[in-house]
């Protein structure tokens, strides 16, 4: 059982509901400028809260921190349980960061119903935050589903493409289809807990709480069933090949702001590392599961890269490159070793800067030419040197050039994958090469070479707001690229705990727990663990298997 560190102030609840409250306040304003300024203020305050959490977070610890727990629906074992650990804490920061940038980007690019747009965006922030900080599976599911509502409206009302209605509906129905299967998986976990609790006379008869579910053994055949049910939910959302078909549509037809959130925050793969792997370690290790998921991941890498190579539209290219990158993440996760998991986690964060950054660049291009089709560009660097520079920097990060953040993550993933099986690693490497090819090829055609027919001299370089976006992304890219240690330290403890969990499995974990507990009830012990850690005592730093710098 993981230790829990409580905080005296419900910072995570604030983090969670502040944007929603902000959205409600926006409703009161009528003036468009007032709406924009308030939205920016709200998102900045939210970012400040997130940074506070990141700073106060105890690194190198597997403990759940800033824990808040209230019984919500005891009859069904549902609780309001929030916490962050090394796996989720960086996503909290990333969500707040990207929302600020999206608000800045939308300043003058959203021209109608600005108020509703900003409200949807802030509501979306609350729901994504909720996905990252919930430890109760039903609470998690609530936010997971709620995400769809603002997303639906964002794509549908502010999308640029003609097919946006179709794209919005497709997105909602696909995700919903996946998540109903996930709900069954979650319910099965609950039932399993129930039968265990009945046999061992635990206090609670039902529970959806991640930490309580972790303490209960699950038979292998059940684990595999639950794994596939949850897999469907996460795979549709991620999206993992071949469940990806909604992604290019949603990214192309929806507004840039939505694309940034969809492509930047890897909710589906987060689900794997947060719930599937720790809850179902034996299933995750079983050869069939590993090989099927690995094959899907590798297929995604290759398929996404090849599809990206032939796209004439930059946003479609980015969508397929997203599929390819997600393949990397999945492969790294199911290498099931320390480097693979750590690399995948870091890559998920990195993509939040690089892929999301490229979508911002696509937005800048779109603002200038009203399209992202290849034909509208050519030799842009001549008139827009700053745009071209940032485009190159963010793009290189996305293909993993050393010195940028992409390199660290991809390198760790490949290391882990080679450790798992050389063949997996070998196939994954081809994705890196193709990735460089499709990006550089597009960049060369769009930015360099002879000036395209459609490109006018008066096209205009980045203005102040765009500079702020590009610059802040570049800073993060170089920071993680050159000095990743703080970020890795934050995640190390939890990744190590996850690796231990994978080694020991559910049954063994319970055995040791019972010996340690020395006859006390499981519940009792948890409570004590929570209490003793209430003073937020930093845990001994774990040895880092991978030397960092």
């Amino acid at each position, binding site marked *: 059982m993981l230790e829990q560190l409580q905080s005296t102030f419900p910072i995570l609840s604030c983090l969670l509901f502040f944007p929603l409250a902000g959205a409600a306040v926006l409703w009161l304003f009528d003036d468009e400028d007032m709406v924009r300024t308030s939205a920016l203020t709200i998102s900045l305050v939210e970012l400040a809260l997130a940074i506070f959490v990141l700073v106060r977070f105890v690194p190198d610890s597997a403990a759940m921190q800033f824990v808040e727990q209230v019984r919500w*629906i005891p009859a*069904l074992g549902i609780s309001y349980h929030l916490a962050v650990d090394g796996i989720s804490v960086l996503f909290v920061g990333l969500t707040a960061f990207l929302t600020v940038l999206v608000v800045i980007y939308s300043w003058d690019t959203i021209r109608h119903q600005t108020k509703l747009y900003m409200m949807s965006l802030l509501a979306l922030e609350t729901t994504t935050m909720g996905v990252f900080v919930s430890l109760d599976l039903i609470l998690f599911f609530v936010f997971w589903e709620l995400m769809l509502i603002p997303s639906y*409206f964002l794509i549908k009302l502010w999308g640029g493409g003609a097919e946006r209605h179709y794209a919005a509906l497709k997105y909602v*129905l696909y995700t919903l289809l996946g998540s109903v299967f996930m*709900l069954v998986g979650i319910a099965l976990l609950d039932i399993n807990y129930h039968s265990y609790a009945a046999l061992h006379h635990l206090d609670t008869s039902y529970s959806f709480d991640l930490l309580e579910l972790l303490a209960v053994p699950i*038979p292998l055949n059940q684990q595999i069933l639950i794994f596939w049910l949850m897999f469907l939910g996460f795979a549709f959302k991620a999206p993992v090949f071949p469940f990806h078909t909604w992604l290019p549509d949603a990214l192309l037809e929806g507004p840039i702001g939505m694309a940034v959130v969809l492509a930047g925050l890897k909710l589906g793969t987060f689900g794997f590392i947060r719930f599937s792997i720790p809850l179902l370690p034996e299933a995750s290790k079983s050869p069939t599961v590993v090989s099927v998921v690995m094959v899907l991941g590798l297929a995604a890498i290759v398929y996404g890269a090849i599809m990206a190579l032939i796209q004439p539209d930059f946003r479609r290219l980015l969508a397929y490159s997203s599929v390819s990158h997600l393949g990397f993440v999945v492969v790294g996760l199911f290498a099931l070793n320390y480097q693979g998991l750590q690399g995948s986690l870091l890559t998920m964060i990195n993509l939040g800067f690089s892929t999301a950054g490229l979508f911002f660049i696509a937005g800048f291009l779109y603002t200038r030419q009203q399209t992202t089709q290849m034909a509208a560009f050519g030799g842009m660097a001549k008139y827009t040197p700053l745009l071209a520079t940032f485009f190159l920097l963010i793009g290189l990060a996305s293909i993993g050039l050393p010195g940028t953040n992409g390199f660290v993550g991809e390198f760790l993933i490949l290391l882990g994958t080679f450790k798992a099986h050389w063949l997996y690693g070998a196939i994954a490497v081809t994705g890196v090469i193709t990735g460089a090819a499709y990006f550089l090829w597009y960049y060369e055609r769009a930015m360099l070479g002879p000036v395209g027919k459609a490109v006018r001299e008066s096209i205009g370089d980045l203005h102040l707001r765009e500079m702020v976006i590009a610059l802040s992304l570049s800073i993060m890219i170089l920071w993680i690229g050159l000095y990743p240690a703080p970020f890795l330290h934050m995640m190390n403890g939890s990744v190590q705990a996850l690796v231990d969990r994978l080694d020991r499995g559910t049954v063994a974990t319970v055995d040791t727990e019972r010996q340690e507990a020395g006859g006390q009830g499981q519940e009792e012990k948890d409570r004590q663990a929570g209490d003793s850690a209430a003073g937020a005592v930093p845990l001994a730093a774990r040895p880092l298997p991978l030397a960092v710098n």
Partner: protein
Amino acid sequence: MTFSLTMSPSDLLLLLPEILLTCWLCVVLIVDFSFPRLPKEQLAYLSIAGLVGTLGCLAWFDISGISGTLFANMFVVDRMALFFKMFVVGATILVILASMEFVHRFKFFRGEYYFLVVMSALGMMFMASANDLLSVFVTLEFSTFGFYVLVSYLREDVASNEAGLKFFILGVFAAGLLAYGISLVYGETGKLVFSDMKSAQATPGLIIGFLLIFGALGFKIGAVPFHSWIPDTYHGSPTPVTAFLSIAPKGAAFAILLRMFFVALATFKPTWVLLLVAASILSMTYGNIVAIAQKNIKRLLAYSGIAQVGNVLIGLAAGTKMGNDAILFYLLTYLFANLGAFAIVIAVSQAIGSEEIDDYSGLGRRSPFLAFSMLIFLLSLAGVPPLAGFIGKLYIFVAAIKEGLYTLITVGLINIVISMYYYLIVVKKMYITEPHDPSPLAVSGPMKAVVYIGLAGTLIIGVYPQPVIDWVVAATMMFSDLAGPAAALPTVPPVVSSGG
């Protein structure tokens, strides 16, 4: 069988809510006749006052734990009966509030309308207490009687007349089935009271008899294959009557179904579970698929209602105490979301005179309040968290998964996705499509009250369902013997032993 007709005051006490409402009903009728110039709104408020009094009386019974049986076990008052009575009375209050404006469309007998609504409610209160086959028949017909008139209340309207005729003919047919079924069961067992039938043998006559009774009740709740009257009747009836018909009789009929299956037929559980699984799968699938093609919002809600009943039947098929808790809970969430949605249909049809989904275009601009409320109600019906409908669906699914009904669950889940599709069509019309006529809509006060109550119920039960769960768990205590064996014998494969 001899009935003792001596009644003590304590027996009368058990009947107090019904007696109260009957007296009040007479008062409403007398006032209507004596003061023909009295505005009919006053009659509505008068009826509501009586219903609120009854509700208070029921709540008092529930809190102080008054229970017992009357008339040689024909009439039972227990917490489940009280739950369904409050359910019916609550629904009736909301329906009357929602009718107040609509009533002006009736050319004649506006006062009698309220009388008939309250009389049907009284019938359904008796249904909730029916404990033997005779009282099932009498109360069922009593409550339907009012509806026969109400459905065809728009006398000038052909659709309403057609609805009335269809409902009447099929209703009488169902009554015939019921009477025939009861006669078979009585012939086989010589018993009428549910609790006396526990030891009955499964003879062919008994099985056919119960199948016929199930058919008649299936007609009441509108489960496939007894649903054929629903679309036309819902479509043609005055909309408040449709709203009433879509919720209150279902609740009362489920009270009877619960008693019949779990008290009289408890020993045949393995057999009737299959029957219910089939009815549930058919209802959900048929209702949801046909709903997609609907152009009229009332028809859409009619088919979605068929599908929702399929969901409730999942809980019944689970055949456990938890399943029954889930049924009660689900019906309550359905009450708020469904009546709320119908209230908006009434408000819109009052304002623009149309019930076509096409005419909901741009409702988001014309009346943000109505559109937002409709969004909430539809999402709750679809089961989107954190609204009440989600908790209801979750409750039902957990109960069914616990019993290993995986086929049923799979079908149910696929149906959720299908239902999301047509609910979203309405949402799209309201928010995305440009309005044909952008003028704002006016909403009357009582209508707003209904919508607010619906919203409050949907949101509060969704966010904080615990008190309601406690209530339904207590209401089904009579089935607690079902929970006993289910909890002791884990139904999922036993977990891997952890050593010791």
